[in-house]
Each structure stands twice: as C-alpha cells, then as structure tokens.
C-alpha cells in the first residue's frame, strides 16, 4: 500500500520544569473567549494544572476527547512515593469529574492547538510558558494510506461471512428480479 506523510502536532510536557503558575490556563481561556481575548477564566481552559503543591504534584493536562460514560480506570498510581489519581492524567471530559467542561453549559472542551487564521507558529500555552515545561513539537510521520471500504461493503462482508457468498448472491439476484 502507498505511504503518505502526515503532520502531527504535539506538546511535550516536562513536569520537572513546571513552576505551577497556571499561565497556560490563563492564556488558553483568553484565546478561546469570544470575541478572542475578551475575557479569561481558567475554568474554561483546555489545559489544566493538576496541582497539589504540598505533595509536589504539578501536572499540566490537555483536554482530549469527550466520553459519555465513566471508564473503569479510577485507580491510584504511586510514582516516586507520591500517590496520583489516574484521573489526574486523563484528558477526557467525562461524567466523573468537572474538568474540561464549560462551567455554565457543561459542554465538553477539547484542545485544538490554538487553531487560528492565519495559523499560529505554536499554541499559546507554549508561548506563555517561559519555563519551557511545555514544548511544542511538530513531526511528520509516514503512515500507510488507508483505503476505506464503503459502508455497504462492510455490511455485505459480514453477511458473506455469516451465510456464504453464494447465498448472498442468490438473495441479491432474487431481490433484484422482484423489484
């Protein structure tokens, strides 16, 4: 199959460099305000500092996909003797917590890497993080070009698997004569 190049935008998070200032939340919520920058409110931010200073926990997390149901992974992790909620690392807007939801409407939020017109060099949270805890990286990856089967083909394939090709063909022929 043919190979194609795909641009992947990522943000590398260096937890050791984070000073916990939440500038990323400030500028994210300002950029996504409507009109742009007209207000700011970290509760609307698409990046959140999971912060527990006394336990030295400083983890910036980006908003990912919305999920309608709670997952089963509500576990605790112990790293370097410190306990973390698995949820603390999760990007999902989900029913088990209020992170990554608009505070008024409850609608889910998702990081869009500061999509803008004209396009920005890097997301604003990265620009405002002078401590370089957030590092923007673009890379090109070679991926196999997928040829997506049509919906009908997918359906037919499962029929064929179940009843055999001959039976499906007979049925289709009979149906076409009837109409």
């Amino acid at each position, binding site marked *: 199959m043919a190979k194609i190049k795909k641009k992947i935008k990522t943000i590398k998070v260096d937890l050791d460099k984070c000073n916990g*200032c939440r500038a990323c939340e400030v500028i994210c919520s300002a950029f996504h305000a409507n009109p742009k920058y007209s207000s700011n409110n970290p509760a609307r931010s698409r990046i959140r500092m999971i912060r527990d200073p006394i336990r030295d926990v400083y983890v910036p997390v980006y908003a990912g996909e919305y999920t309608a149901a709670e997952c089963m992974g509500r576990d605790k992790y112990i790293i370097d003797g410190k306990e973390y909620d698995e949820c603390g690392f999760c990007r999902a807007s989900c029913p088990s917590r209020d992170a990554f939801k608009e505070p008024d409407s409850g609608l889910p939020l998702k990081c869009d890497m500061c999509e803008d017109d004209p396009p920005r060099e890097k997301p604003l949270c990265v620009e405002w993080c002078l401590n370089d805890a957030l590092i923007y990286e673009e890379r090109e990856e070679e991926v196999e070009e997928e040829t997506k089967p049509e919906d009908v083909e997918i359906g037919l394939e499962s029929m064929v698997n179940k009843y055999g090709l001959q039976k499906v063909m007979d049925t289709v022929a009979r149906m076409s004569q009837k109409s």
Partner: protein
Amino acid sequence: MRYGETGFNLEIDLTKGNIERVETDPKDTELHLGGLGTNTKILWNRVPPEIDPFAPEIPLIFSTGLLGGTPAPGANRTIITAYSPQTLLMGYSMMGGFWAPELKYAGYDKVILRGKSPSLVYIWIHNDKVEIRDASHLKGKGAVETQELIRKELNEPNAQVAAIGLAGENRVFTASIEQGRSSASRLGLGAVMGDKGVKAIAVRGTKDVNLARPAEFIELCNEVLKYIKFRNDNPVPNVMTILQGLGSPQEMLHVDEKWHTENFSWGNSRVRRKDFWNKEIEERWKSVQLNVRKRLISCYNCPMKCGAIISVPGLSTYMMKCFSKLTYTMAAFVDDLDFGFKIAQRATEYGVDGFSTPQIMAFAFELKEAGILTDADFEGCPSDNEGKFYWLLDRIVRREGIGDILADGTHWAAQKIGKGAEAFAHNNIKKHEQLPLKLGMLNPVYYLMYATGEKINITQIEGQFPQSPFATMEERQEFINDWIQVPDEKFKQIVLDWEFRGERSNPYYPTIDMSVDIVDWQEMIHYFDDALGVCAGLSSFPLKPPYHIHNYPKIISAATGIDMDEEGLKKIYRRNRSLLRAVNVRRGLRRADEVPPEDHWKKRFPELESQLLDAYYKFKGWDNEGIPTKETLQELDLGYVAEDLEQRGIIKNG
C-alpha cells in the same frame, strides 16, 4: 459591564452573620484604581480615627487589585488592610499566591469583614454561594494544615484558602495570614483576623474576568512577557547577584549566602558577623538547602520562581520564600541552616512574620543577658541556642508567661518591661521592627524612604534606582543605555554623575531635590502595584522591571476602558498617597514619628536629614508636619478629607 474588575464587593458582618453582595461605584475606580487605593478610601469613610485596632467596626479587607485575575503577568496580589495593632496606624500587608485571582473569578473585587464572630468560623465563597461555617474543629491547627483540611472537607481541591495559625487566634502582633506559598505577614493583620474569629477564607470561582480592549491588552501582556524573558536572559551587570534579576530576592535559588550573612546585623544585633562564612558552612548549607528544596515555584500567572516547596524529613511540607531561612538561623546564633528550615516550618504553621518574630526573640535573650529579664521569666527554657528559640517561639505564639508580653513586638514589650529595655528595642520605625541592615554612610534616598514610607518596612525602600554608584563611567553608561523605565531622562544623569567619594557622593549626592524626585518615582510605582495587584517583583522592586510608568497607563486603559495617560495615572498616585497619609495623620502620625533607627547608619547628618524631610513634604504638598494641605487635598479631589481634617483642627484654618 465592568472591565478588569467585577464591580462587586462581598460585605460580611460577622456579628450578625449577614452576607451581602454590593455593587461598587465605578467613579471610585477612576479616582483610586482599586486594591490599596480603594481599601484606603473605605477605611477613611467607615471608621473614625479614635478607635482601637481590635474594635469590631474596623473593616478587615481582602482585596484584589484592579488587574488581578486578568492575563497581566504577575497580577495576583491580595492586598489586606486594617489598623495595625502594633503601629496603631493603617496596616497594609500583601501576599502573592493564587487567592486574589480566584476571588475575581468568583465574582468579587474585595471581601470586607466587619464585626466579630461569636465563635471561630471560616468563610466559604463559591461563586454566588457564600457561607459562614463553623471552624471549632480547626482551632489551634496550623496555617498550612488548615488550608489542606478545608480543601478536603469541602472536597474542592481547587479552592484557594487564606488562613491563620495559632498566632493569629491568640492575637500575636506578628501574626500572619498564610496562603499557599505566600503570606501577608507584616503589621499584625493575622491578629486582627483572629480577633474577628475568622480562621480562614476559602474561595473557588469559575466566572469570567472581562477586558475592555482585548487585542490591545493581550499585545501589551505579550510585550511584558517578552521583556521578562529578556531580563531573565540578561541579568543587570555590575551589581550584586541578588540585584541582577527580577522577582523578589531569589533566596530559594541561591545557596551562596556570604554577603547576606556577613553584612546584615541579624536578629536584634548591632554588629555584623564579619567572618561568618567559611568553606565548611558553604558546603553544609548548600547540601541542606538542595536537600529540603523540592521545587522552585511561582505565584499565579508569573514565570518567576521566587518560592520553594520545602520538605524537611520528619516534618510536614510547607512553602518558603524570601529570607526566612536566614532570619531565624542568624538571630539564634545557630550556624546550621538545617535549623532555619526546621523552625521556619513550625513558625509557618503558627503563622508568624519571619522578620519581626526572630528579632523579638533575639531581643528577649539580650534582655536576659543584660539582667533586665530574669531566670524566672525563662523557667524551663533550654540552654542551647536552637532549643531556646523553639521554646520562646512556643511561649510567644501561646502568649504564655513572658511570651505574652513579647507577643506585642519589641516596642510595646520594652514599654511594659521598662528597666532600660527601651534601649534594646533599637531597630523600630513607627513601633515596627525593621530589616536588620545597618550601614555606614547615610544614603539620602534610603533615609527618606525609611522615614516616610507608610508601609513601614523594607519593600517600601527598595526600588529600581541603583542602591549605590557604579565604579566606572563605562559601567554607568552601560546601565543607562537601555534604561527605558525612567519617568524622566534626568535620572540617567544622576547615575552618570554619582560617585563613591568626593563631592558627588552620599550623603550630599544625589542632592536633596534629586533624592526627593527619586523617592517619588519609587513610591509612585509601589502605589500603582498595590492598587493594581501587580507583584512588586515585576515592577517597583527590582532594577529594570517589565512594568513602568510608560506602559502602565496603556495596560490599565486597555483592561478597563478608562481613559488614562501618564499624567492622569500620576495624579491617581498622588491622590492615593495623600489619602493614605491623611488616614494616618488622623491617627496621629506626625513628623516626629518619621525617624529611622538611631543606629541605622553609623554616620548621621541631622541638619541634612531635616532638610530632606522639609523638601519631601513640600514636594508632596504637605505642611512641615507631614500633613497634606487643604490646597493639595482639594487639587486631588479630596475636598472631603480636607474638610474633615479642618473640623478636627488638624488642618489649621487660614
């Protein structure tokens, strides 16, 4: 819609348990900005001067600044005001951290506490929902511990909590209000909070802060950030390490303490320990600090890292900044920094000021040595230097025995003890303990800032004008080349001409007029910061900061929509400055109180000092007693203040 600010204050009557959300007058913002400016006006308007600092009517105000919670970097300060039980004048103390922005997001510019709660309570502010909650289970708990307990109890990990420890509950005059990595610790406002029966204020807010001209405002913020980055990459050359960068003193970062340990008269001392620092201490201190320091941390929306998480094995974790690591260690004559981090942990949980408290303890042991206090006063006190300090800290915070007298600070303790103790309370201005920096030659600029500052402590006296001359003309030229912050080009010439010796050196140069000009500039930026809620560490405190008189008017204007130019902003400064002076004048402040400690400089010049004060007052439009004149007040739209002062006979008619 209001921009920058929310336009609402939260008024809480603790006696009645009444809570109200009150809309503020936008005119007050135009006249005073916010923060310290509007707090001062509230204090002036609401309570008469003849009132005890613990009177229930006194409003204890927790204020955001006008820019607090906006994207302006470092706009995170909480400005707390009341009357100080120690100085009896208006007490204002500020803290960074995360509390003020959270209050803005909850929809309020200020929390105004008045009255007294019949039992210990805490306040829980969650957007429109505000509750006064029982805190009897938090009685005696540490200030850091309390913040954790409240967050847990409310199940709100993102709530920001400002709390007092045992010292505040017991009305110790050096009691602080602690919050995260920050504390409002000077002038005893923690004691006022404790007296009102409030253990803590917890806040969680999820509303918007609006901006008037968004694109313009963000561009200005970007410029500020860019300049911070430039300054972090380009430390100011030819000055001491501690003065090269931005932020508050980078005491959590630096481990070389030769200069500070040897050049301050620590504790209550009159002398410096000139050969304190040696190889062994250097290595030991470095290893101790790096071992307990878990992370360098910042306040809200600020790229600096002035604080640190400190975790001493066997003790609960806390956060530290500035000089607390040194103040206890050096005052106790302990040579191991390990002690400093350990006792500061206890002191932070108790909630006490890290400058005054060790000074009071050193003062007490000097009195014991001199035979003014007796063995009976120290019954049960261990004899080793570390043990002595822990013992006395416990007594002061609990107000037990001699601790009860010392808890009022060195001035009041000396008055009570008598027998010549007054001579040992040698380091006060307006009854408040000063940083133990004793120098040789009088510096006229510093003289004025020490003498006249309404804040009555160190941050009032440091600023963006160099502390001493540069050695060579090349260095001077290099310094002034990119000095964009000066309000006027004339300040550059002063730096060029300033010498270590000869005619153009301290104390006669900068000249009297120049000194007054320089002080006015330093003060002006402090008054902006304290009204806007911007950290002095990015503005009035360090050399070449990102905020200055040339960008502040634009920033304020873009944020709030208020028309503002440099002249207009300067007038607000003069108004706020004279109003604060009037509050204190009404409390009895006069020229005779504006006196730095006698031993602050070895060489003093009474005649020059008097002339400096004359010129300063005149420049401000105050009379020779330091009282704003009627004309000055009227010119600053403070006619009602002039009227009041006239009625009281403070301003003489005609």
